[in-house]
């Protein structure tokens, strides 16, 4: 991210207010982490989630997430396409980022990490995501409660790493977002920021990786893995099934659409196999046809 673009105090205050209002309206009051509930939020907001792993040639994924909104008559449709080739904590952050575009109606949007620099809207969306997942007031109060002081500048790196690992396993933000978060509220110095940012947080055998695994192995490993999921929410699968049941799509379209999400009609009790007896009957029939022609 390009640091030349700095959000003003007024802009930051607006983001905080929006994040707080949104969290509140969704029932996340005070120090309640959103974490995995972000997927329930999508369901409740009627946003269709399509998960697909799109790997890129380089180190970073081709894109993180994409929001598509369309309006037909008085009906609005919103989809979030999520690249599951990315780490799970980054997927959660990417969804929170897209929720900013959804709530602020900043339109259909494709989030490409490399294109975000110098883009005020993208920077705002990222800040919203961080604030939405872990509000500034909450992080300040956690620091104060734990260290009895608002600045961690005098704390050694090991202490900070343990703190970050605990924060990460509770709030499900990427390590680097947490580092940035603490820098944004001036809890850590520029030097600490650079040092922490240089850590390979995805190395599970590195110092941070070992600390994280020791604190909460299941959650820590989950957050640091690309899920590579192919799927959509059960609600969306239900729409596909209903479309078939209501004869809006035929067997072929039903089968092909479910196959996109690694599912098949059989999973839902629709059996499309043909008996051997019938296949033989058709083979015989077509052979007779060929015989008649010759």
């Amino acid at each position: 991210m390009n640091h030349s673009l700095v959000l003003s105090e007024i802009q930051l205050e607006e983001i905080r207010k929006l994040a707080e209002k949104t969290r509140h309206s969704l029932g996340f009051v005070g120090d309640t982490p959103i974490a995995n509930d972000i997927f329930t939020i999508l369901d409740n907001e009627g946003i269709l989630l399509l998960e697909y792993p799109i790997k890129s040639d380089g180190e970073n994924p081709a894109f993180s997430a994409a929001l598509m909104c369309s309006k037909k008559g008085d009906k609005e449709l919103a989809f979030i396409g999520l690249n599951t080739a990315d780490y799970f904590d980054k997927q959660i952050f990417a969804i929170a980022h897209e929720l900013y575009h959804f709530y602020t109606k900043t339109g259909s949007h494709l989030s490409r990490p490399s294109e975000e620099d110098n883009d005020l809207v993208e920077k705002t969306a990222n800040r919203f995501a961080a604030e939405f997942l872990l509000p500034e007031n909450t992080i300040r109060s956690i620091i104060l409660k734990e260290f009895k002081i608002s600045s961690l500048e005098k704390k050694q790196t090991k202490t900070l790493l343990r703190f970050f690992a605990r924060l990460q396993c509770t709030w499900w933000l990427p390590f680097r977002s947490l580092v940035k978060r603490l820098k944004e509220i001036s809890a850590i110095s520029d030097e600490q920021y650079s040092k922490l940012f240089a850590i390979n947080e995805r190395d599970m055998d590195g110092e941070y990786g070992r600390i994280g695994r020791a604190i909460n192995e299941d959650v820590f490993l989950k957050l640091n893995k690309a899920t590579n999921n192919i799927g959509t929410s059960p609600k969306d699968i239900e729409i596909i099934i209903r479309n078939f049941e209501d004869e809006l799509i035929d067997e072929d379209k039903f089968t092909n659409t479910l196959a996109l999400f690694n599912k098949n009609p059989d999973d839902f009790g629709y059996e499309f196999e043909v008996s051997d007896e019938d296949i033989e009957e058709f083979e015989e029939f077509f052979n007779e046809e060929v015989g008649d022609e010759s």
Partner: protein
Amino acid sequence: MKVDLTSLNPALESIFSNPNQIITLDANFLIPPDRSKYAKISFDFEAFKRIWLDPIFEAFPNLAIHEAVYDEFHSTSVKRYVDTNINAIPTKLIVHKDSSLTLEERMLRSSIEEKIYPLTKYDPMLDNRDDRGEVKSLSYIAVKGLPYFAAHDSNAIKLIEKAEEWTTGLDNVQAIQMYEILFYLYRTNNRDKKSLRMLYKYQYYLTKHEKNTNPEWGQFIEAMEFLYPVA
């Protein structure tokens, strides 16, 4: 696809009394069905021609397609067969052309297309192939007051059946399904009933699911004869 034997289709009844009316066909009425994904075997063109294409062209002298449907024929055999019928003198297959529409008709056609396309995969801005044939055909026949559209496509049929609910502007168009024409051929053409049964089985009574939802050939004929007793 589901076989509905719960009520009489006035379109089929009308066709029985006057088969000379114009019936506009969707591409899937002219392309051999391929359900090899389930049956491991696809319908050979020559067999389809003998069982289905030749009999329908014989039974209905005023079959038609829209020019957009013509673009959907990729197989040489189908294209050759369609061309032969179009070029026959007199023609055996009418081609509806948008260029034949008057200015007023074109405006009306566009307004109907506007209503239909969001319910399909076709997008006029992209002019993509998906569902293009059915959107263009339906818009054209609705403007021209041609009442019959024969299709083996659940979405196309729903656009007609739900015309009022979905306000598609297709209120005066009536759908004719492949199984209805199969019954027509059964009643009017005594040549090869086994072949008609095989085509019915391939299209409607093939998978385990279809066997649970659709009637087998004997029950189908019995129910259709009950619905169309004097046909």
